[in-house]
């Protein structure tokens, strides 16, 4: 058992490392492709050479980031096959369709139109070039769509039926998978956050250009475009974040409870503004879960249910299967102990199915499959030793959520300030503190973006597929030592590559800052 946990932990650490490195590049690709397309559109419409130069500057940054991010995502798929083979088989058909579509878009759309973007300046018409830039931006977003659809399905499995003969979840409704409310919210929230990240990158690098006292016109023009895209992006990200909170409260209430460090909920539940998780708090004891904090009255009920008096269940309420009505009456839902029992019945049915299959008894197989189907929605709970195992790491989820939200609030102010300075008070842009603040915000936006994924992925533990498969069941029969080895190989490889890639990006930015971008040939 210890070795099994070790394999799970190391595999999770490895997957988290790979995914977080991958995510350093993706949002910048998503957002920068849009910003470049907007800038090129300005050149196309105005014929102003300035916009052509500015477009080419940011296209270079886009190219460096795209090249550095190439193939970092494919490693995740390798890990599915090696470390998570039970999981990859179990989800096979559901993941197969979105990932195949993603592969086609990524390969054909991006590789074709990115080539035209970079190599086609004097070879194709202005209109065709502009179309290629927009198609690249659209292709990048469509690629992201299918990955996010696959991820959303893991958070909210829908549109499928489990087939014990194939041991797979078989898709029976593509639209339910692709258009689930969780998928749609996740898609918009993630893509829009990419706009914000890229906008901050453009503003931050522009601040560096200003710091070097050259290319003021390029910097200010870039800040104006990025400021508008970033402001629109952060407002829409907040709006879709609100939608995500509603969806999480509906389909992953345990995640929401962990995000808030909420153990016992109530009608008109407050939202923790700032606070610290009490490390001594255990499920079932009387300790306060939050110390040194303040609460926004009714905030969580409004956020999660859009109703100031709605009941929001805490961790212990969910475990006990208790909800309250607005009148204070108790409603019994399915407790986690009952879910575990149901999960075990489903697993027992699966074992009977296997015995019947080996014996060649078709009738018994049918009966076992029907029993399995009846309790399948709680299949994964059968692997848990106790209800407490269904609780995600509360502290990490709680703090990551706060980092994301506070950084998001700061980014809104940052964008508004950037627009104000670019349009109304350009003298402020010459202030060194403002310029350094712009540069430092590049780090903040990436921390915000990664924190969002920590909330999404740590908050859904122990599930690799919500309610159906816990992480420890998804793992392959492999040695912990081999995962540890590859984990450290990854740390070494990623560190070296990241150092080289960041080095190239920084050296290019420095190079640009030393020349006159609008005048140089």
């Amino acid at each position, binding site marked *: 058992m210890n070795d099994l946990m070790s394999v799970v932990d190391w595999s999770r650490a490895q997957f988290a490392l790979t995914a977080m490195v991958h995510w350093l590049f993706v949002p910048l690709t998503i957002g920068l492709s849009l910003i470049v397309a907007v800038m090129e559109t300005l050149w196309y419409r105005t014929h102003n050479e300035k916009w052509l130069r500015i477009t080419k500057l940011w296209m270079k940054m886009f190219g460096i980031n795209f090249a*550095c991010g190439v193939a970092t995502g494919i490693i995740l798929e390798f890990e599915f096959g*090696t470390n998570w083979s*039970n999981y990859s088989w179990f989800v096979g058909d559901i993941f197969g369709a979105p990932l195949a579509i993603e592969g086609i878009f990524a390969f054909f759309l991006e590789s074709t139109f990115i080539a035209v973007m970079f*190599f086609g300046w004097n070879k194709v018409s202005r209109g065709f070039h502009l179309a290629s830039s927009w198609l690249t931006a659209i292709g990048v977003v469509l690629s992201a769509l299918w990955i996010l659809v696959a991820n959303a399905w893991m958070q909210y499995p829908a549109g499928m039926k489990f087939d014990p003969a*194939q041991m797979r979840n078989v898709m029976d409704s593509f639209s339910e998978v692709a258009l689930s409310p969780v998928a749609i919210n996740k898609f918009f929230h993630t893509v829009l956050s990419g706009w914000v990240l890229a906008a901050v990158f453009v503003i931050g690098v522009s601040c560096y250009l200003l710091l070097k006292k050259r290319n003021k016109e390029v910097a200010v023009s870039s800040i104006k475009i990025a400021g508008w895209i970033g402001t629109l992006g952060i407002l829409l990200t907040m709006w879709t974040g609100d939608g995500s909170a509603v969806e999480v409260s509906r389909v992953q209430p345990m995640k929401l409870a962990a995000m808030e460090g909420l153990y016992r909920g109530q009608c008109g539940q407050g939202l923790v503004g700032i606070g610290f998780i009490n490390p001594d708090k255990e499920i079932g004891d009387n300790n306060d879960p939050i110390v040194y904090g303040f609460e926004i009255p009714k905030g969580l009920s409004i956020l999660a249910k859009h109703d100031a008096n709605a009941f929001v269940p805490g961790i212990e309420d969910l475990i006990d299967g208790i909800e309250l009505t607005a009148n204070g009456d108790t409603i019994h839902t399915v407790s986690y102990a009952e879910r575990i029992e149901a999960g075990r019945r489903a697993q027992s049915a*699966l*074992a009977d199915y*296997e015995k019947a299959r080996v014996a060649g008894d078709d009738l018994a197989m049918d009966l076992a499959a029907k029993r399995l189907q009846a309790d399948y929605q709680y299949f994964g709970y059968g692997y848990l*030793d106790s209800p407490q195992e269904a609780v995600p790491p509360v502290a990490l989820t709680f703090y990551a959520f706060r980092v994301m939200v506070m950084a998001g609030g700061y980014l809104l102010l940052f964008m508004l300030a950037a627009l104000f300075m670019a349009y109304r008070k350009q003298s402020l842009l010459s202030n060194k503190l403002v310029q350094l603040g712009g540069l430092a915000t590049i780090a903040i936006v990436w921390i915000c973006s990664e924190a969002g994924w920590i909330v999404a992925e740590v908050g859904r533990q122990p599930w690799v597929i919500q309610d159906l498969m816990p992480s*420890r069941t998804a793992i392959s029969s492999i040695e912990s030592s081999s995962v540890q080895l590859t984990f450290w190989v990854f740390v070494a490889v990623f560190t070296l590559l990241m150092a080289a890639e960041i080095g190239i990006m920084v050296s290019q930015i420095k190079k640009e800052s030393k020349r006159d971008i609008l005048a140089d040939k």
Partner: protein
Amino acid sequence: MSEFSTYISRLGRRGIDLYVDGFRSMTIGKSLWLIIIIKLIVIFFVLKLFFFPDLLQRDYDNDEDRANAVRARLIENSTSSNINQNQ
């Protein structure tokens, strides 16, 4: 028909030229391409070949065997969970 094939061949030639000329005239891309090539070699010829085999593809001949293997593992895991619970 011959006009069409000439058109297609010209189009193909232009497409190839786009890539060849583009790569030739790259100014900042050389070290970038070096990193990409090293990365792809490490990913596909080291990590994939030596560290990350697709276990179910490698160890079983067909989908039926793979399904049976996963079923057996999930049943075995559920049994060990229940044993832990009873202890």
